[in-house]
């Protein structure tokens, strides 16, 4: 740091600069959130052979603004049976962590609001605070569906947080730094982690879907079971804040996946031309990941809750640990090819297991095959 005596004016300029950056990023991200809502509706419509909102403004882009107007002018109902302060606090707690995380994401070479040495740790810890909003919202609503949604969310978040954290350890072992800029620079120098850590990429991506409560892991909302889950009792802008929080969390995790595994602002050395090219590359990758978010949502059905927990604790967690061990081995032996061993073994095992199971299931179940038509149903083993 320079001598503090120099002048107050300089530090004031610095402060104003930072405030300006914060305002810029916050507004861009909030705007992107609104565009994302529109994109979600248009893409889902397209995938279902519909058109989607196309009336308000250019290609219907004004739809989000119209929706916002509707949300603002709706009556802000606070039901009589809720815990009032927590109820009001919850939507804010969902949005703020998502917004705060944007501070450390490197958008382009040297372009980030706060250049933290522990950037990754900061993102992981702050982003996971978002679950407090959801859990509090569900709990404070004092209604059974909302509570179920909140409880599901907390259990799901804790489980997938573990996988999310451990799957990044592989990246950390390779780079040797928590600094997000270092991680991107390392990828620019020696290849994206998508290729160097394929399993970690898959685990991180899937866990981030669970973290953001997106299908196929949207158990906290689960319209078909829980009405609307944790935000059942919310209306007006409070509901809109939950909505916005979800989309901001999507943007955060997309940009994090971009930073950690897809090389951030780097692509084939193009970023060396100009910092704006780096920014464009970063944006393109993030937007593609956001599209994949929407794409997955409108393709896959929701998991059952026990399946969700099984996948996390019986598969993802051991795999993430194995990935850490393998990374340690690969780093020690300087054999990056080793990282592909686990995925390939897994695919081979999957093939073998599926083939075996298929062979076993040839023909009808024995008790049904033995019973002549018209015989009483054998009692179920369960």
């Amino acid at each position: 740091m320079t001598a503090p005596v120099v002048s107050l004016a300089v530090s004031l300029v610095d402060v104003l600069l930072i405030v300006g950056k914060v305002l810029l990023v916050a507004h861009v991200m909030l705007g992107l959130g609104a565009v994302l809502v529109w994109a979600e509706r248009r893409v889902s419509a397209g995938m279902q052979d519909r058109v989607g909102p196309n009336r308000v403004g250019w290609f219907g882009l004004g739809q989000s603004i119209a929706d916002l107007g509707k949300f603002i002018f709706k009556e802000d109902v606070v039901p009589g049976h809720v815990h009032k302060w927590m109820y009001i606090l919850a939507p804010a707690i969902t949005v703020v962590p998502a917004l705060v995380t944007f501070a450390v994401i490197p958008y382009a070479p040297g372009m980030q609001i706060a250049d933290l040495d522990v950037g990754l740790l900061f993102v992981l810890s702050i982003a996971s605070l978002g679950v407090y909003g959801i859990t509090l919202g569900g709990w404070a609503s004092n209604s059974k569906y909302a509570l179920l949604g909140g409880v599901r969310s907390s259990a799901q978040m804790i489980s997938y947080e573990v996988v999310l954290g451990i799957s990044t350890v592989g990246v950390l072992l390779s780079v040797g730094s928590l600094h997000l800029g270092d991680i991107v620079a390392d990828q620019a120098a020696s290849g994206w982690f998508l290729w160097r850590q394929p399993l970690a990429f898959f685990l991180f991506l899937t866990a981030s879907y669970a973290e953001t409560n997106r299908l196929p892991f949207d158990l906290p909302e689960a319209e078909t079971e829980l009405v609307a889950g944790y935000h059942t009792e919310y209306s007006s802008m409070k509901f809109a804040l939950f909505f916005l929080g979800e989309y901001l969390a999507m943007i955060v995790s997309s940009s994090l996946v971009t930073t950690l595994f897809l090389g951030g602002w780097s692509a084939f050395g193009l970023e060396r031309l100009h910092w704006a090219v780096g920014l464009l590359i970063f944006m393109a990758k993030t937007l593609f990941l956001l599209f994949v978010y929407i794409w997955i949502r409108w393709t896959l059905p929701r998991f059952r809750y026990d399946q969700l927990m099984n996948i996390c604790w019986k598969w993802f967690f051991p795999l993430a640990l194995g990935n850490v061990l393998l990374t340690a081995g690969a780093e020690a032996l300087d054999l990056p090819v080793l990282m592909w061993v686990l995925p390939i073994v897994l695919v081979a095992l999957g093939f073998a297991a599926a083939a075996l199971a298929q062979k076993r299931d040839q023909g009808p179940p024995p008790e049904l095959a033995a019973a002549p038509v018209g015989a009483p149903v054998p009692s179920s083993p369960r």
Partner: protein
Amino acid sequence: MAATVKPIARRKTTLKERLYFPSILHGMGITIRHFFRSLSGKAVTMQYPEERWEVKDNYRGAPVLVKDDEGRPKCVACSLCEYVCPPKAIYIVPGELAPGNVVERGPEVFNINMLRCIFCGLCEEACPEEAIFMSKEFELWGETRAELVYDKETLYALGGVRQDPIKKWSHK
């Protein structure tokens, strides 16, 4: 009572389906194909106010009153439709017509409340004079409730002249 067993032939799951992930990719392929197909303008959505559907002949739209091919109102205010109307949407006050008309009776007031009407078509079936028909009109709207109570003039204007092969009043 003992239930009976009827084995149902199930399709065997293929190896690809059992592997699960290829199925996910397959599903994503289907959705993205539909997405691009919709993008190229093949969505099934009809852009309603600009595009309109062809109303079928047997469509039951708003009930309307018709005139015969010589422009004479056909309704004789017998009130059968009023009687048969399940939601009681029709209100008729019968009146005497001026001498010189083919019939002596006609409606003085004939109101159909389109907010009550359930478009069942029973009035059309009940009418002995073939004077009330279900039209193809489906855009019924108004800013007040009173606007949607269609009076005699409106109903005749909507119905217009109906060419009828049976010239009942010409063979008296």
